[in-house]
Structures are given as C-alpha cells and as structure tokens.
C-alpha cells in the first residue's frame, strides 16, 4: 500500500476518534471524566498534527504539535484537575436537556457540519480535506456541550474543546495556520483560561456554588 494512503487512512481514523471523544464528552456527566476526555482529545490532536507535519514536511507543524502536547494534554488538564479539587466540583454536572436528546441533536449537527464542509473540502487540495467536516462537527458539538451544561467548569471545558476543533480544522484544511497566529491563539487561550479561573472563584464566593443558573438572578426585572 502506498504510504500516503496509509497516512490518509490513519488521519481519518484519528478524525473519527476526535468525533467519538466529542460525543463521549456530550454523554458524560462527571466533570472529572470530562477533563480526562479533554486530555485524550488533545492527545489525538497531537498525533494528527504530527502525522500531517510528517506527510507535508512542514516544520512549523512539529512545533505546534509540541505545543499541543504541552498545553492541552499536560498543562491544562492538570490545572483543571487541581482547580476542580479546590472548588470541590469533581462530581456530576447537571445537564439541562437529557443526554439521548442532546446526542440526537448532535447527530443532526454532524450532518449539518458535513453538508457545510462539502464545498470547502471540494476546494481544498490537502490529503486531509475529508476531515474538515469532522473538525466543524467537533466545534459544533463543543458548543452544544456548553449550551446544555449548567456548571461553570464544564463550560470552560467546552470552550477548550471548541478550540481543539478549530485547531484541527486549521491543520486539516490548510496544513495549519501561520505560526504567529497560532502562538497568539495559544496565548489568548491561556489568558482566557486564567480569567475564567478567577471568575470561578468569584462566582463561588458570590453564590456559594458554581451553578450558572444563579447568574439568572443578576438580570434586572
């Protein structure tokens, strides 16, 4: 078999696992599990970036793969774990909509994402173009998770997963963004993350809980 076919097949497999992990995140209730899944998602992303870097022979992509490994597989999950331990929020996070319905909606989103991605992937010339739909679907699903969860921590995880999808879209469609942008995004992410972290503590001090439904009390009648 030709090596590029093998790489394409492997990439498809990785893309599918990315989607699978996204669905697993939608279906999990426990925050700890979500973080583990997030780390796994990062790991898959790392592998796919490495593969693309190898097949396209782009050195920058190796750097961004390393960045992914450091940031998304090691650093952020570790921080998140510590955070939820300190916040005491490692257990169940209530969902607003029941899980099978959420997954059904997710299924619809996947179809929509693929429909949306079709014209783009027809234009793209990379061997990974089929996976743009999956990247888009991962973004949508992360969004869906943010919508259907109640706790602040899960929202952050959803936010981070969304960024994973974006990153994957970038690598699969165009072999990655320019390095500057990528570094910028990584920095943004980190800053955003810290700000949100500070918010958690503020929210908890204010309401004695991380349940976001408390925020509804803030609106003026």
């Amino acid at each position, binding site marked *: 078999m030709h090596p590029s076919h093998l790489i394409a097949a492997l990439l498809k497999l990785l893309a599918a696992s990315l989607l699978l992990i996204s669905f697993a995140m939608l279906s999990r209730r426990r925050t700890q599990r979500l973080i583990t899944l997030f780390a796994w998602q990062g790991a898959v992303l790392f592998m796919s970036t490495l593969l693309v870097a190898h097949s396209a022979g782009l050195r920058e992509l190796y750097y961004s793969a390393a960045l992914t490994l450091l940031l998304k597989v090691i650093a952020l999950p570790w921080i998140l774990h510590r955070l939820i331990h300190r916040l005491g929020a490692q257990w169940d996070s209530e969902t607003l909509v029941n899980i099978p319905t959420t997954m059904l909606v997710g299924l619809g989103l996947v*179809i929509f994402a*693929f*429909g949306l991605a*079709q014209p783009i992937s027809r234009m793209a010339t990379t061997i990974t173009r089929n996976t743009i739909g999956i990247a888009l679907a991962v973004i949508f699903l992360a969004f869906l998770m943010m919508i259907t969860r109640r706790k602040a921590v899960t929202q952050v995880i959803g936010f981070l997963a969304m960024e994973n999808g974006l990153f994957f879209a970038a690598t699969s469609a165009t072999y990655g963004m320019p390095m500057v942008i990528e570094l910028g995004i990584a920095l943004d992410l980190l800053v955003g993350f810290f700000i949100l972290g500070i918010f958690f503590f503020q929210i908890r001090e204010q309401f004695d809980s991380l349940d976001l439904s408390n925020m509804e009390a803030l609106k003026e009648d």
Partner: protein
Amino acid sequence: MSLAGETSRYMVAFAKHDLSFLLMLICGWVILGIVGLVRPHRMGWIARILFPVGALIALGIAVLGAIALLSGHAPQIFLLPLGLPNLPFHARLDTLSGFFLLLLGMAGAGISTFAAGYFRSGEGTAPGLLCLQYHVFLASMALVILADDAYFFMVAWETMALSSYFLVTAQHRIPEIRRAGFLYLLMAHIGALCILLCFGVLQGGRWLFTFDAMRGASLTSFWASAAFLLALIGFGAKAGLVPLHVWLPEAHPAAPSPVSALMSGLMLKTAVYGMLRITFDLLHIRYWWWGVLVLGVGLFSALFGAIFAAVQTDMKRLLAYSSIENIGLIFTGIGLAILFEACHLPLFAALALAAALIHSLNHSLFKSLLFLATGSVLHATNQRSLGKLGGLIRRMPWVAALALIGTLAIAGLPPLNGFVSEWLLLQSFLFTPQIPHAFLNMLIPLGAAVLALTAALAAYVMVKFYGVIFLGQHREPSLVHAHDADWLERIGLAWLALGCVAIGVLPQLALRAAGAVTETLLGQAVNLTSPFWLIAPITSRQASYSGLILLAGIIGVVGITFVGVRILAHGRMRRTVPWDCGYPWQTSRMQDTAEGFGQPIRHIFDPFFDMERELPFPTDVAPHYRIHIEDRMWKTLYLPIARGVQRLADWIGLLQGGRLSTYLLYSFLTLIVLLGFVL
C-alpha cells in the same frame, strides 16, 4: 411433461376469460348478500351457508388473481354495461390488480370462514343486513381493484366507505361507536374528495376519465406533483398515515372482529393499491422528493404506531395502532421505490416495491388473524380490556396456538412471513447510499435506524399483546369459564396462520408474485432465478435467505436437543406451586398489567404522549392509579381545525335567519346573478 403442457394450455385458455369470471364471482358476493336479506333473522342459514359460500368465492378470486399474476398476459379489459349513458364502467385486470385480488381473496377466505362461526344474533343490526353489508363491502373492495376509470373507481370507493361505515356502526346503540363511525365517515370523505380532485388533475384537460386516457396525458411537473400530493392525502387518509390516522384507532376496534379484520387487513390495502396505481401507473413521471416525502411520512407513521400500540390497554386498539405501524412500513417501501426509480436505479426500486407489496400481503394475513383471535377472546370472555384478561392459553389452546403464530409473524421473527418483508426492506435500505444526491444519501440510510427501532418495538408490542391476554394467571375469576373457538372459527384462523407460515417458509413464491407486479410497473424485477427454497433478490453474494431451511434447522436442532436431553438425562418431573423467590401469597394482581408493561415506553417516549396521570400517595389507604393517554395530534391539529370550521359555520349561519321572506330574497338574488351571467 405433456401433462404440464396440457395444464398450462388450459390455464392460458382459462386466463383469457379471467376477468369475466372474476366479475361473476364478485356478483356472487352481492347475490349472497341479497339472499341473506330474504330471511334476515335466520342465523343458522346465514352463518352456516352464506358465509362459507362467500369464503369459497373469495378463494376463487384468489385463484383467479394468482393466475392473472403469473400467466404473464397482457392486461384484460372489459366494458360493463352499467353506469351512466356514455359513461360505461371499465374494468381491467393486470398484474397489480391480480396481486391485490390474490391478497383480498386469501385473507377474505379466512375471514369469511371465521365470520361464519362468529356472528350471532343479538343487539344491533340484524344478521341478514349484516350479511348484505359484509358482502357488499367485500365486492366493492374487489371492484376498486378492478376499476379502470375514475367514475367506476369512485363509485366502488364510496360503496366501500359506506358499507364499512354501516358495519362499523353495527352496534349503533353504543354512543362511542356512533362517534367512531361519524369520525370514520368524515375522514373517508375528506380522503375521497382528495382522490376525486386528483383524478380531476390527472385527466390533464382532455376531460376523459378512463385510466387509459390518464396514462396518455402528459402533465407539467407542477400538476403531476399536485396530483401526487392529492393522491397521497386521499389514500393516506384511508390508509391511516400520520397525521390522518385519528379515525383508525377509533373505528377499527368499534366494529365486530371480522369486520375489523376486513378493514385492517384488506381495506387499508386498497389505499395502498390506489397509491401504487396512481404513482406508478397513471403518472408518467416521478420526482425524487415525492419519494422522500412518502418515506418520511411512512417512517414516522411506523414509529408513531408502534409507540402508541405499546401503551394501549384495549386489545383491539392495540392492534389498530399496530396497523398504523405496518402501513407506515408499507409506505416506507413505496417511498424508497419512488426515490430509487426517480434516481434511475430500477433494480433497487423493484426490491423496495417488492418489499412493500409482500408486506401488504403479510399484513393482510397476520393482522386479520390477530383481529379474529381477539374476536374469539371477546366472545369467550366478554372482555376487551387487557387488564381483565390473562391465562387464556389454558382455556383456549387453539386460539392461543394460532394467535402465537400471528404474534411471532407480526413481530417480524424468522422463519415467519413478517420477517421476510422486513428483511427485504432492510436490504433495500442498504442501497440508499447510491442515491446521487449529496444530502439524501447521508440522511436516508438513517431511515434504516428508524426502521430497525420500529421493528424491535413491534416485537415489544406483540409480547405485551400475547403475554397479557394468553399467558399468566387469569386476572378475573370469570375467565375460568372461557371456552375455545368453534370449529369454523378455528378453520378461519388456521387458514390465515397457514398463510403466514407458507410465505415465511417459501418467500420465493411471494417474491415471484411481487416480481410480476414490479415487472409491469417498473419494467424490472429482482433476481428470481434462485431455487424455490431460497431468495437472493440482488445477488447471492449480496444476501440470501431461506425460511424453509431455517425452519428445518430450528426443528432439527430443537428435536435433537429434546431427544438428546431425554437420552442423556431423564424426563422426571413434578408439579409444584410457582417459586417466585419464595413469596407465598401470590395473586393474579401481582402480574404486570398492560399499563405496567407499557411503562418503559411511556418513560422513554414521553414527549410523544399527552398524558394525564393520577398517582397514589404512599399514605393512601385505598390507592388509586389512573392514567389517560391522548394523541397529541388531537390538540395540535384536529381541534384547531374543528374550531375553525365551527367558526366558519357560525358565520355562514348568520344567513339563516329563519324568516321565509329572507330565504325567498336569497333565491331571487341568486336567480338575478345567474341571469346576469347568462347575459
């Protein structure tokens, strides 16, 4: 060899006059009905003579239908010297009619035999009148299938609606039955109106209402689609497609059981026939979105029917909802066929259409069987509510055994017939990714998921149906006196059960019959070359199935196991009280009720139902539990329409002042306006 040649020559000679024989037989039914009127209260005469003769006529019609189907003749045409001057009735017999006549005759023979044992004199319509209505109903269904012009078709169609209306309201002293009958008549007429309009569109401006003229008419895509949609609404209302299904669960249970069987088993199929006739024969073109529409409606009806059947507590209502499910499956097949045909994949279209046709045939057999079985149960126990039955397998072994066959068949279990059509339908879903539309080829394979869910739910429903009625302990003490069905009823049931087994075991026969129809309608049939005991509709590599060998395998393995256990172990046995984890005070009230058995479905599919619940408190001394489930369609669709009509009627009602001079003024003004037009 020479014998076979001789036989086939006779068959050919005979087949030439098929249609006239058929019409004579149908006349025979009407005559039977009129003879019944001569002595309308002689039960023995009507039941023991007329109904069995009607069954024989049905058998004859089935045979003639089969000959028309398999002889491979060009369609036969016959002009009836009836009807209006210059508008004679045209009759035509082709393979499609042949198939549906076969269906009508096969199931009709069983039902009429059963009815011979079933009807007794009592409340409501006199037996003689019932006999007339019953046979006119049968005859009108056969004429619908044979009609070859819009005028004849509509006359037969309306006769069918009216005669069945009178049969539904046989026990017209009960208000609910009158209400059900009214609803049925209303929906039947809305449907008939749409069909009439559909014919109006189909004639395409030439004002010729024979089907032959319609075949030649070339419609623009707009008018073709309009005709198709009108046909879908019209026949959908008769078939009970969601959301036009509301009359079905009311009317079918209200009728006496043989009539329920006729309506569910046969009348719904005339709607399928009409749909096929118009879509594949009269219309010269088909668009892919028609297929998607029919497919969507069919799948939704199937799922809807199965879910609602699972929560019913009345055995006949349960079966009525199950009919909606099965009609949904049939229309799913039709939708797929339209879609494939429009996408120029005729072989797959033939497969999907064959699945729909065979499922129609199957449904006419097993649904009739089950409705008749509920009739026997009803006679034996006077109970329709599942909550008051139970344990009848010990009192009515014959009915229980035959109903078990129907139950397993309708649950889609191999090696019976329900499985065959579901298998074919699933096979045709496998080809949907080949549809050359970007979005469709992703979406439609998901229909297979809905289909699989529906099929599995049907098994759930049927376990509930059979388990609650026939198994367990008697829920009422009076059930001890239940008696088994009499011999005519048993023959009727056994005939239908035999049909279920035969098609299940030799599906190639049914596939040949359906193949002849698809050959006419689509110019293509699935692969029929495999031996008689095997079906391999596309290629034998793709898929093959043999009910016969599967049945032989099951019997063989079960037999060997039984003998082996007896030889290697022993056959010792003693009878004790049930164990039930050692709980000593068991009463029949501790079994699952019908409500209890439906609970998981209510829980899972909660959004489908409009539920009212009264739950007991833990502190209640006399706990009371009540649940009432309504169809959401009533509140969201029908009641608003009814209110709108009422408002319109009120508004028009203003014209009705009650004063004679005002009315005269209306007439006068109308006259003036009309004269003004003439000027």
